[in-house]
């Protein structure tokens, strides 16, 4: 314990030294899309643009991209019967390549039945419990992350297109509030890094806009696919805060709000990130 807390002051100082001098040479070529009126950014830029050429190359080739191992596993699972109803995903939805096109780009989406928004992981589990009579998959399980990746992949190249009005608007506002609230012992909000300081280094880490268009993403650090709420958890942990629970209302609101911050960006799932 003494080691851990003894270095806390040192750590906090280091983490807050957001270096403005060191910028990757690739900045000039960091391309984005123009943001709609009233957006926080002038240009919306995918996390892809903030990564090194080596990391981009891993994403650029579908054979070299390890995220496709998940896509292929889930493509088989899509056709596999599971649960008491004797159904597979395919029994109701047919070929994912056509029926799931665009679905992942519009998540989270309002559910009339639940009177709240649901994200892709939740919708997959609703299908399993309600329609297949199969047990839900645990968050972070290989199965749920694989299937989420597979469904999102069917929207690859399509623009992120979440709806934020109507019944979604209080959820949008809640997500915005979370985004700008400083948390943890390091006292940082999402905005501290990803809005005010993207394009700069925080210690050894090059900060992006924190866009979600590539999730679930294959992280080099973890050498596996990471679902969005696990990344949210990681960010909150890194600032030494107490993370919200994955699939909680708080993270769902944040997912909606952050998706809007990247509105129009092409879906890149499965992307490759640091």
């Amino acid at each position: 314990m003494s080691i851990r807390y003894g270095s806390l002051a040192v750590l906090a100082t280091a983490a807050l030294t957001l270096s403005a001098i060191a910028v990757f040479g690739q900045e000039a070529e960091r391309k984005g899309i123009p943001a709609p009126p009233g957006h926080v950014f002038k240009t919306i830029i995918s996390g892809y643009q903030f990564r090194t050429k080596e990391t981009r190359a891993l994403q650029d080739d579908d054979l070299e991209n390890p995220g496709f191992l998940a896509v292929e596993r889930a493509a088989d699972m899509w056709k596999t019967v599971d649960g008491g109803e004797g159904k597979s995903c395919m029994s109701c939805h047919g070929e994912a390549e056509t029926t799931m096109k665009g679905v992942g780009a519009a998540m989270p989406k309002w559910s009339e039945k639940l009177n709240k928004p649901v994200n892709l992981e939740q919708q997959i589990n609703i299908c399993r419990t309600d329609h297949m009579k199969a047990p839900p998959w645990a968050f972070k399980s290989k199965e749920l992350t694989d299937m989420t990746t597979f469904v999102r992949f069917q929207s690859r190249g399509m623009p992120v297109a979440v709806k934020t009005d109507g019944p979604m608007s209080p959820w949008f506002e809640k997500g915005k509030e979370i985004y700008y609230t400083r948390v943890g012992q390091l006292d940082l909000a999402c905005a501290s890094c990803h809005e005010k300081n993207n394009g700069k280094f925080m210690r050894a880490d090059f900060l992006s806009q924190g866009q979600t268009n590539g999730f679930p993403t294959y992280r080099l650090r973890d050498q596996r696919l990471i679902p969005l709420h696990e990344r949210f958890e990681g960010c909150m942990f890194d600032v030494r805060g107490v993370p919200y629970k994955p699939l909680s209302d708080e993270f769902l609101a944040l997912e909606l709000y952050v998706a809007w911050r990247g509105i129009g960006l092409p879906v890149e799932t499965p992307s490759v990130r640091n």
Partner: protein
Amino acid sequence: MADKPRIKLPKEAKKGEIIQIKTLVSHLMESGQRKDAQGKPIPRKIINKFTCEFNGKPVFSCVLEPAISANPYIQFDARIDEEGTFKFAWTDDDGSVVTAEEKIALKA
């Protein structure tokens, strides 16, 4: 390692042509350097060998150590003198072997 290996190579080639082969398999490549939550070392479990043969003749192979990243990617080349079948094999520390085959034809 139940997943199908991912392999990419052309379906046909001219006689004498050198083709590129890309392979990717799903594997944790547990290095033996990590510890679990109780502080006990997690035993090493990696793919330690990869071989590629064409019509029974060795083309390329490698011995892998724990310093190879998870989900090993191996890219190499092969000269095509005749039509035939590539055989690929990945050997796990536990002795299991995952194999795959790909055919290639000669372009007229």
